[in-house]
């Protein structure tokens, strides 16, 4: 599709643009450094449209500055009466026809990519044995956290999306309270999580996240959803297919895991008494929990999606979640003893499925 556009003519310009634009942003967050095919397609469209737009601006600015330089009263004198010109059919035809051509040049790839990125027909595809051919993740956005369910594996996690590289990952998106929007800038454009219908799309993750600064890509909520909209971040861990399979197996191994109120571990006991009612510690399950699944808490990169991942923040958060994320639905546990809080934090930071 792009071949028809005499791409080579733009190559020089695009190369220059790439250099300028690439200087901007962080690898784990910027749309200018795409880490997947979808983001790359969108980035190419950005370059194409930017190139055409700069061309248009160059023409406008040239005429503009020449006119400004040549036709000043200071030069022409106060008495100079310019000749009135009604218009020019030739000129008007030119500046109608050329923009139409430019719009067509942009419209063709736009329509092509709209259909390409909107194609989720392979989502339900199964092989001969009835196994799903593609990984599907069900995403539920909630007041200010994200739940990720892997239906064919029967596992569920929260706040940190784990996906394999090198294949299309399909997403079912919905919100359970108010509208949010699911966005991983470095990987591809966003899609809204509406309250009444499931939205479907796919992303491709080409780069393993372990080499990134924090070891994760950043995900954002892109639709105003209340006071803590700005803090509704999530993280994305991209693993090689083998590592991903290992992660899935480890998650499956947590089946039946729970916290025991009579445990010798004071943290586990306190957790069982205060937290287990809402927070599961087994990765096996489906979406629909009232609070984030904590099976992988110790593997995560942030507390509550955005705070530094350390013990003090874990304790502070449990004591007064409203202080950090106003409007979230977790009650405060300020009445827990310091010892209990300390023990719970230790217990949580030990909840891991990765080595």
């Amino acid at each position, binding site marked *: 599709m792009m071949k028809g556009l005499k791409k080579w003519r733009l190559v020089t310009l695009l190369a220059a643009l790439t250099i300028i634009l690439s200087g901007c942003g962080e690898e784990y967050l910027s749309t200018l450094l795409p880490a997947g095919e979808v983001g790359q397609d969108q980035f190419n469209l950005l370059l194409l449209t930017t190139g055409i737009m700069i061309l248009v601006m160059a023409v406008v600015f040239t005429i503009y500055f020449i006119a400004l330089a040549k036709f000043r009263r200071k030069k022409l004198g106060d008495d100079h009466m310019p000749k009135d010109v009604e218009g020019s059919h030739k000129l008007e035809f030119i500046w109608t026809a050329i923009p139409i051509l430019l719009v067509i040049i942009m419209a063709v790839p736009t329509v092509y990519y709209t259909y390409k990125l909107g194609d989720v027909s392979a989502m339900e595809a199964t092989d001969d044995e009835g196994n799903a051919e593609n990984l599907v993740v069900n995403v539920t956005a909630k007041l200010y956290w994200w739940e990720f369910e892997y239906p064919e594996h029967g596992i569920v996690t929260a706040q940190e999306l784990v996906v394999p590289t090198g294949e299309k990952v399909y997403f079912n998106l919905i919100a359970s309270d108010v509208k949010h929007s699911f966005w991983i800038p470095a990987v591809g454009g966003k899609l*809204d999580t509406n309250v009444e219908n499931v939205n479907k799309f796919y992303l491709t993750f080409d780069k393993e996240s372990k080499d990134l600064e924090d070891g994760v890509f950043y995900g954002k909520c892109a639709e105003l959803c209340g006071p803590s909209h700005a803090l509704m971040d999530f993280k994305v861990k991209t693993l090689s297919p083998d590592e991903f399979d290992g992660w899935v197996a480890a998650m499956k191994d947590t089946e039946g895991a729970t916290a025991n109120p009579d445990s010798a571990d004071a943290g586990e006991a306190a957790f069982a008494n205060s937290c287990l009612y809402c927070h599961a510690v087994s990765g096996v399950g489906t979406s629909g929990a009232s609070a984030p699944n904590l099976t992988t808490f110790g593997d995560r990169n942030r507390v509550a999606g955005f705070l530094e991942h350390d013990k003090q923040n874990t304790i502070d958060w449990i004591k007064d979640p409203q202080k950090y994320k106003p409007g979230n639905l977790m009650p405060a546990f300020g009445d827990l003893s310091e010892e209990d809080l300390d023990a719970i934090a230790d217990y949580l930071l030990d909840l891991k499925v990765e080595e």
Partner: protein
Amino acid sequence: MTTVANSVGQKKGFGATLWDWLTTVDHKKIGILYLIGGGFFFVLGGIEAMLIRLQLLVPNNDFVSAGFYNELITMHGTTMIFLAAMPLLFGFMNAIVPLQIGARDVAFPFINSLGFWMFFFGGLFLNLSWFLDAAPDAGWTSYASLSIASTGHGIDFYAIGLQIAGAGTLMAGINFLVTIINMRAPGMTYMRMPLFTWTTFVASALILFAFPPLTIGIFFLTFDRMFGGNFFDHTMGGNTIIWEHIFWIFGHPEVYILILPAFGIFSEIFSVFARKRLFGYSAMVFATVLIGFLGFMVWAHHMFTVGLGPTANAIFAVATMAIAVPTGVKIFNWLLTIWGGNITMTTPMLYALGFIPSFVMGGVTGVQQGAAPLDYQLHDSYFIVAHFHYVIVGGVVLAILAATHYWWPKMFGTMLSEKLGKITFWFFFIGFHMTFFLQHFLGLMGMPRRVWTYMDGQGWNLFNLISTIGAVLMAIGTIVLLINIIVTTAKNVRVGNDPWEDGRTLEWAIPSPPPFYNFAQTPLVRGLDTYWIEKQEGHNGYTAAEPVTDIHMPNGSIIPFFMTLGIFIAGFGAMYRVDHSWGLPVLVFGLAFTFLTMAIRSVKDDLGFYVTKDQIRRMERGRD
């Protein structure tokens, strides 16, 4: 009641002056009222903007709280669009359009007054939310799931306030349509109308078709929040996406309601200060109409990420890009207007020249966002914040500031200081680009819009800092403008009919400010730029189409004020009905009061008054 004597402008006491302004139906005074009201809300919205930028000055800032920040962004957007930009444009339309078409007033002076008071009380209602409860906090778009979930009365203030103000806007729109169709002077054919009149005409047509959807959407929201409706509750069979459609079916044409009059203002200014007729006048008119028409075909480009499917997205993407064509035609026609002209750098011309590069940049990013797959990245990021500020500030606000300088002498009879005007321009213009240019890149670097704060280490710190500094420069520019207005008013140096000396349209053929009856004799229009034609032939003034005859003028009336007051009171009743038993009676009382004033208006005959030939002759002589 207005009499000839007090219209002529004798010294009056404060009470009489106040009464005069409360009851006026004179389009020029209503224009000034719109400027004062719109100007007040512009400053208010500007203060909100400054608080927003101060909060985003550094990462992890806690200058304002998260909830308060959402109130600030909501009120900033709502105020600037509904209570500042539109009323300020209405101010100029009111003051200038009847003069440009050679009319003595608008078609419905009473409704003109009513429209103003509806806007004013609606805006007041909305802003009282700061003091009485909490301000609305679901964004100016007030998307349904969040606006339904929002606690407190904030969103109720939004719904009722905008309902009242919106009704005023609709009335104003209809009034301008009828005025321009019916009240043109002899010889003022459609294709001789100045571009500002043309764009007012098309924008008014857009208002006529765009505001009813808003009215209905807001009624749905009002019923959902205050009367147990379920239009947007999906658990009860409602649908939140419907709100998005309704809102943008209004919201997109709204953008053109703002920008078309801005185009009109700049068309006048380019032509006057390049001393050359507008290049391609008929193409400009046609492009205006086409933009207005296409404006209704593209609303879903605000919803590319909602999940409407590839077919809808593709259609709306292509339709959106198509708007670039008539807009491009306009840009090139302006360029060719100054090409070969004799350009003088007055303050209005500076704004017009600043507008071209600014608006072109806003336009091209608009086309980029029209490319749906690319918009999946740009939507709801800081890129879109940059884009719409480039078109609305770079287009509409620059036009309002230009018009303020350009028509100030006509409206007030004094000339704003050119020196201070240029200082304002440079502060505002540089500040504007500093604030918003880098926001494109913030968006591309992954920063979502409407975020209360941002964490350190995401690469956004520097650009946000620069952006805030730019906002400070814009604020300084605005303060200088206010000083300019005060100083100019205090000095009170009077100017003649045509203070720019290159005026082309009819308003420059009559005194500044014009007498309350505008034209002593109805003018005869002899072509496009009719005053320019007269001047070329050595006449000073206009050719009259009639002998001096008695002029029929409307009486002032306090009824519009009270009519609106009733609705204003009813609004509080509707809102507090949910919590307090007195709510319902207040609602009923307010509506009954409004109906009573409507009945009085219907029953009482008010035939206006005549200015006699002798009085006209005396007053016209007094001026010479």
